[in-house]
Every structure is written in structure tokens, then in C-alpha cells.
């Protein structure tokens, strides 16, 4: 098992550097809390945690010395292309965009209208255009959600 992980994923090193930067940001923010040098102050714990984060991300970065890039990846530019292809496939990008649009739509329309649109759109897209059955499933799901949350649990929905 351990040998499998010796290979670094496309973009992994960059991500680990980002985590290091984030940890430093946390330290700066934690340091702004009052009473830092004291052992018992609002800031003592956050600063300690930030130091732990920095230390562990340093260890993670250090471990890259023992890892190799996939030999098929030629250079940094190629790595970026592989990364892009892996994580920005059309159906992932569409899902993310539709999800964001859905959350925005909830505020403008009501919950049920936007949920129906969201489900119907994605069902149709992912099931390659089986429109009628997708609409039926979306409608059915909506009915179940209505019964369960609005009637049974009396959850207030926007």
C-alpha cells in the first residue's frame, strides 16, 4: 500500500504549498487576538493550533522529497494540463455551476421551484436527455421532500 502513494498526483505539490500559505495566514490572524504571550488567553490556543498546522504542512512538503511525479508527465505545463483534464471535466464544472446557480435561485424564487429546476436540469443532462422520466423522478423527489420535511418535520424552507 505504501508504495502506491510514492507517486505524487498532478497538482499535489501546489496544493500542499497552498495549505502551508493558508496555515501562515491562520497564524497571522490568530496572533492578532489579544494577550498572546500569556499561557492562558483567548489567543493562546489558536496560535498553538496554527503552529501545529504549519509544522504538519512542513512535514507534508518535506515528504515530497521521497515522491516522484508520474513519469508520463513531462513538465510543469503538462502537469497543469493533466490536472485540468482530471478535475475540470465538463460534467463536474456543470454540476458546480448549476449548484451555485441553484443556491442563488432559492433566494429569488422559492425553494420548491428552484429545487425542481435544479433536479430536472441535472437529471436530464446526466441521463442523456431522457426528459420525461427525468421530470417524473424530479417531481417524485420533490413530493417526498415536501411530505418529509414540510409535513412531518415541519422544517421551514425558503
Amino acid at each position, binding site marked *: 500500500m505504501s508504495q502506491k502513494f510514492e507517486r505524487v498526483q498532478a497538482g499535489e505539490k501546489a496544493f500542499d504549498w497552498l495549505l502551508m500559505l493558508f496555515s501562515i495566514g491562520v497564524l497571522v490572524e490568530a496572533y492578532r487576538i489579544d494577550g498572546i504571550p500569556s499561557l492562558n488567553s483567548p489567543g493562546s490556543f489558536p496560535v498553538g493550533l496554527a503552529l501545529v498546522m504549519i509544522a504538519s504542512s512542513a512535514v507534508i512538503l518535506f515528504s515530497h522529497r521521497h515522491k516522484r511525479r508520474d513519469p508520463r508527465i513531462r513538465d510543469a505545463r503538462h502537469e497543469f494540463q493533466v490536472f485540468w483534464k482530471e478535475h475540470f471535466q465538463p460534467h463536474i464544472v456543470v454540476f458546480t455551476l448549476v449548484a451555485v446557480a441553484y443556491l442563488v435561485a432559492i433566494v429569488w424564487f*422559492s425553494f*420548491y*421551484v428552484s429545487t*425542481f429546476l435544479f433536479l430536472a436540469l441535472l437529471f436530464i443532462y446526466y441521463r442523456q436527455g431522457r426528459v420525461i422520466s427525468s*421530470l417524473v423522478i424530479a417531481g417524485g423527489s*420533490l413530493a417526498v421532500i415536501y411530505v418529509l420535511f414540510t409535513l412531518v418535520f*415541519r422544517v*421551514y424552507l425558503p
Partner: protein
Amino acid sequence: MFQPTFTRLALAIGAAAMAGTALAEYPERNIQGTIQWGAGGATDNVARSLTPHVEDILDTTIILTNRPGGTGVIGMNHVMRQRPDGYNLLYGAENPLLYPLMGLADFTYDDMHSVNIIGQGLVVIAAPADSQFDSFAELLEHAQANPGELRMGGTGAGGLPSTVLAMVNAVDELDVRNVTFGGDGPGITAMLGGHIDFMPLSLAAAGEQIRSGKMKGLAVLTSEEIEALPGVPPITQALPDIESFLPWGPFWGVFVHQDAPEEAKKVLADAYEQAVASEEFGDFMENFGAEVLNLHGEEAEQYLDNWQSVTAWAMYEADAEILEATPEELGIPRP
């Protein structure tokens, strides 16, 4: 091809959803009730026993959530930041009246609408059952011989214990370690385990434990012995000078956003007045060692102003240095 069906369905669902909101009267859905202190404490107990009566009257559900921390600032801040639609209530104790004084927050109950001041309680200074002290006088004597040694349970700056400590310090000297808990409930647990040496508590939270012998009452914050705790001396026995601040005690109230619709404010005021007046709740409060006030509107505002002025000036006289602002600067009149 599917477009017309689709639109029609969407419209139908939308219309159904909207019809629901337009026709209903307040309250047409669940109300969120935020308790600014932790579970098992006095505020929590009062809120949880009163709420079912109100739910009955309003014919809705009030979902209670404890949001303790920061002397109640966290819970109050949460309610003030919600939409002012009357669906978010705050169950609070006395602390918010002291926020600006302690520099905890720049708001007080003046920034909310008081639905009802439910009742007020008495304070007892409690110690573990096996404590070496039998009275507050003994504790004071020990603390003065060993300053900064005794561990007092607290609930954060501006909480009831710190206010009582300030009053004591206004007339005498008591230097202790302040161990902060999320409310009187967790404080009592720590006391039962002997992890703190004493803690000023509301009688409501501590009475049962003292009567059953799990804790010891060192003094009640009154000028005379009280019926609910026979044998526990009044604090004036150890500190006669503290009498000028008495009678003093914590109170509990229900509050709603200042900009809540008038209709909601009125419905709530009526419902809470009726619920607090109910016999069952009255019995509960009596059992609980607390007095029912049931104030709303003008009376409630007057009560709050009076409590604030008495306490703020007492704290100012005790130790002006711990305050972030003087009562004068905040425009709090002298009692």
C-alpha cells in the same frame, strides 16, 4: 416539447408555495427560541418550562436552542442578526444590560423589544458539600490570608458570579482565581466534583442541590434569611455594608428583534403574558425559588432601566478599573 408542461408545473408549485405565505397570520410556522445560557442552567430551565405554555397558546412550535458563550453575547448577537420577522426569540438573563459597561458588546436590551420580563431570582453563594468553610465569613477570612488561591466558578466577564464578586469587592476585598464555565449548569457539575471552591449561583439553579446536601450554601444575597433555604445565613451577616445594593437578583426575559412587525410583537406579548400568568408556571417558579414578575411594555422597560442603573453604579463603586466605560459615559442615571 416538454416546455409547456414544465412551466405549468413550476408555476403551480410556486403558486402553492406562495399561497401558503400570503394568507397565514403570525405565527404561520415554527419559531426559533435562542437561550443565551447553556443547558441545565437557570435561564435554560425557565425557558424550557415556560415555552410549552406559549406553544399551546400560539398553536405553533418553538424550537429552543442553547447558544451559550461570551456571557450570552453569542446568543443575543445571533438573534439580533436574524431577519426581523418575529420568528426569532431570545431567552435572556440580566447580563446584556452590562455589556457596554464591561466592553463586551455595544448593545443592550434597549436594542431589542422586550416581550416579557418573566421573573427574578435570588442569589446564593454555594460551596461543595465537603468544603472547609461553613459560612461566607470564613471564606472571606481564608481568602484574605491567602489571596489568589481560592477557585471561584464564573460564567465570563459580566456574568452573575463576576457581578456578585464586584459587589463584594465594593465593600471588602476578595481576590480569587476565576474559572469560567458555559453557564451555572456546568459550574455546578464542577463544584460537585470539588473542582472549584465556591460559586455565586442563582437560587433557582442551586436550591435543589443545596437542599439535598450535595452542595453547601454559604450565604444568600439578601438581608434576611429566606424560607427556601433555612439555615443559610444572609450575606449581610458577613458583610453588613453590602446591604446598600440589596435587594438584587438575576432576572429572565423574552426578547424579539426591535424591528419585528407590530402584529408579531402584540401576539407575542399577549401569549407570554397569559403563559407566565398560568398557575402551572407559577407553581414551577415557586418550586424554583424565583418570583414571577410578568412585566411587558412600559413596565418592562422601567424594570430594565432600574436594574441597570443599580447594578452599573454598584460595579462602578466596586472597582472602576475593571469597567471599560463608566456608567456616566453610557448615560446610565444614578439610582
